């Protein structure tokens, strides 16, 4: 499979009152065409900022300070705002975590779908009436694609008239309107109930197969990743700490953080056995020294860990940022 997105040494910083925060620190990642990459991490791990950076959506006081973002052969960091705007929505689309705040409450769903088509779709006919009819037809088609019943009437309704699951579907419909090559879904189901979550995730998987699109699924739920992603990337405190094929990473994690996360998930099978939570909490990102960021919480830490640890080879297609990864094999 050919590479669609390749990010190298990405760094995004925010100037906060307490000092400089490097929210994304030297992230490398690669997404192949048609693939689904899961990005896992807790709050503050930098998973959302990484992909806002890819989309060129980081605003002051934040800025991308280093790295390259090659998408389909072009470095997005070299593009002008106009060129970037042309790519956003057409080639790469992103759905936001909270559908209610991401949608415009003052516009109907049909108007919001039309906005994307007008901005990006060059195949629309030129004549005003024909154009309007084409937009309408495409909008109905998109709402149908994401499984919204009676799309004709639903187009005239406002976001507040839809349930949470339906709003998430609408955002996906808007994101998919121009058939992007890459869909970045930021916690698409976090706000939803499990029965609705299952519907939305299956929808994304189904559309991915039909349109041959690549998907980045940002989530804190390892279960979601296990069921829907080919590869997974685990982030901690602004860095990637482990990546590899989903089954292998979850089946046999090679970074103590990944292992800790998996051991933290309560499940019926573990009844009566104590959970082994990761002790302590995520470090403050201000003024972090260049050393393993997990060492203060790591059960395997030793003095040698107080150095900057690079991503190390952990088997075919797998890497982990840990000096002791061999011992975990």
């Amino acid at each position, binding site marked *: 499979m050919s590479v669609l997105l390749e990010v190298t040494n990405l760094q995004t910083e925010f100037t906060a009152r307490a000092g400089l925060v490097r929210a994304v620190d030297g992230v490398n990642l690669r997404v192949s065409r048609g693939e689904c990459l899961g990005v896992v991490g*807790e*709050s503050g791990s930098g998973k959302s900022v990484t992909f806002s950076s890819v989309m060129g959506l980081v605003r002051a006081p934040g800025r991308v300070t280093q790295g390259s973002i090659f998408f389909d052969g072009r470095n997005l960091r070299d593009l002008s705002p106009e060129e970037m705007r042309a790519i956003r929505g057409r080639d790469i689309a992103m759905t936001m975590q909270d559908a209610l705040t991401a949608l415009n409450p003052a516009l109907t769903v049909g108007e919001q779908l039309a906005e994307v088509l007008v901005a990006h779709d060059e195949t629309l006919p030129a004549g005003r009436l024909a154009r309007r009819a084409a937009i309408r037809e495409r909008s109905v088609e998109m709402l149908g694609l994401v499984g919204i019943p009676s799309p004709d009437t639903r187009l005239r309704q406002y976001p507040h008239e839809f*349930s949470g*699951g*339906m709003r998430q579907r609408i955002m996906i419909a808007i994101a998919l309107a121009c058939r992007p090559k890459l869909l970045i879904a930021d916690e698409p189901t976090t706000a939803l*109930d*499990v*029965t*609705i*979550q*299952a*519907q939305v*995730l*299956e929808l994304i998987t189904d559309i991915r197969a039909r349109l041959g699109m690549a998907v980045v699924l940002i989530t*804190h*739920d*390892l*279960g*979601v990743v*296990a*069921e*829907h992603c080919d590869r997974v990337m685990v982030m901690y405190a602004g860095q990637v700490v482990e990546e590899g094929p989903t089954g292998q990473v*979850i089946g046999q994690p090679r970074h103590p953080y990944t292992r*800790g*996360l*998996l*051991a*933290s*998930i*309560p*499940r*019926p*099978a*573990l*009844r009566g056995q*104590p*959970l*082994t*939570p*990761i*002790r302590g*909490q*995520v470090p403050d990102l201000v003024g972090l020294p260049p050393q393993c960021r997990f060492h203060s919480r790591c059960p395997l830490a030793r003095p040698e860990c107080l150095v900057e640890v690079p991503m190390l080879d952990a088997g075919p297609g797998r890497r982990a940022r840990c000096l002791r990864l061999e011992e975990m094999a």
Partner: protein
Amino acid sequence: MTLLQVDGLTKQYEGRRSLAQRLTGTRQSVVRAVNDVSLRVERGEVLGLIGESGCGKTTLGRAILRLHEPTAGRVVFDGTDVTALAPPDLKAMRRRMQIIFQDPYASLNPRRTVAEIVGLPLALHGIATGEEAREITARVLERVGLRANQLDRYPHQFSGGQRQRIGIARALVSNPEFIVCDEPVSALDVSIQAQIIALLLELKRELGLTYLFISHDISVIGYLADRVAVMYLGEIVETGPVAEVLDNPRHPYTQSLLSAVPEVGPRRDRARVRLQGDLPSPLNPPKGCKFHTRCPLAIPLCQTRAPENRVVGPGHVAACYRLDENLSLLDAAR
């Protein structure tokens, strides 16, 4: 021994009648958030209450404590009818029945120090004041994994997990026997969530507590509950020992709920029962069995008359007409 017995508990909220409704004499709209719920909690056990948002599980928890006044029904706690208590007696009873809230940010007063927040129940119930109260508060704080020198800090100086520990300390300080845990770990990151769950189980063991543990997360309930009750649109549709209900769910709603949970770890050959559509509006709930609009097994009878509870195993009951057919629902999906 039964510590808490709930009989036919109902909580309804009445909407305001609009002018048009008043002129035409239309009845005001009524949301029955909790509808005729009966359950019991044994001393020393954890009863898990599962359901999706809007099913009424939080309202039920609060109605049991009379934080929301129930519309009908009875709550008997250790032989006393809580629903019949006059205010002073209710206050005394609350010393024994406490609650931990979901949102560790919204449930702590930002303008009070930890000592004030955690110590308030001591003053309210006349347990201790002054130095003595401070000592007790410090002891409880240490018990939940915070430090006594953090007594004079404010909530914003703590992380989400630490705040939830403060909430737990507040619930514990009056030495209760029963605690309603209302989604106490839902707002937390996975690694912190595990810390809080471990703490809650430890406290239960040491202090002999009884929990009503409300959650939408089946994995959490499956891990820590002894028995489980499944709620849908204000009603309990299935109850039983946790292993029974999780391994052998009998109500079609429980079956679909369980099969929707994404799982880490060895992929079982899992059956999928997918629900169509959304939760119906509680303002206008379906007649008959409330689940019939989304149920893959619904028959005409389900639309007209609500099914009664039927015993399907030891301590395991479910309210469904099609209990015999749905044994094969999961098999069919496999």
